[in-house]
């Protein structure tokens, strides 16, 4: 099962991961990563904007690519847009597979691609001032691991 969603409101990852897991009974294992807005360095809020015609189709293509590359039974990608506060989930990626390593690698693969090969733009608010976050060199070297 491929389940990809853009969410505009705060969400509880467990409410999605439970049904996703139950959709694949006897599966072996599920690896899940949940990324949250960090509270460090005085960050007051984070905003993610996207470009609707490209963002969701891009995530769907990414999930399909990961599912076939890692021989998954299912993949779920949930991604927030809009303004988020520290502690709120930004992204939740789950992979269900017969084999543990495949599930890990698929989630790692999807996260690296969401970071620097998907259509999201991020800015942070500190001391009342919004600043755009530029992609980091680290993100691109993470991505190159999968070539």
């Amino acid at each position, binding site marked *: 099962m491929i389940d990809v969603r853009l969410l505009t409101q705060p969400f509880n990852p467990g409410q999605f991961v439970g049904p996703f897991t139950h959709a694949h009974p006897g599966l072996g294992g599920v690896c899940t990563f949940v*990324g949250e807005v960090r509270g460090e360095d005085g960050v007051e809020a984070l905003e*993610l*904007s996207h*470009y*609707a*015609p*490209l963002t969701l189709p891009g995530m769907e293509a990414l999930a399909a690519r990961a599912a076939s590359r890692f021989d998954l039974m299912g993949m779920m990608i949930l*991604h927030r847009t809009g303004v988020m506060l520290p502690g709120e989930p*930004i*992204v939740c990626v789950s992979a269900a597979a017969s084999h543990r390593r495949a599930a890990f690698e698929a989630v790692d693969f999807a*996260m690296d691609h*969401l*970071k*620097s*090969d*998907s*259509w*999201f*733009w*991020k*800015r942070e608010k500190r001391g009342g001032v919004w600043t*755009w*976050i*530029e*992609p*980091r060199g680290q*993100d691109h070297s993470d991505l190159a691991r999968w070539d």
Partner: protein
Amino acid sequence: MFLGRLADVAGTPEREVAAGPLAEVLADLPASLAIALLDERVRVALNGELVRAVETIVLEQGDELAFLPPVSGG
């Protein structure tokens, strides 16, 4: 449409422009914005589809052009 930090440079997320070749459209914009849009890392989408040969774009009535700076998601 201007995505990410380009919306700040433009001072707005969207702007109406006259139809015509892209070079003419850019020539009508403030110089600092035109320079930011021509950054080689900025991708361009016409009506929701990425365009490789940006210099060939000719806008018609109702077309939507989007300027997409480098992303920073996850």
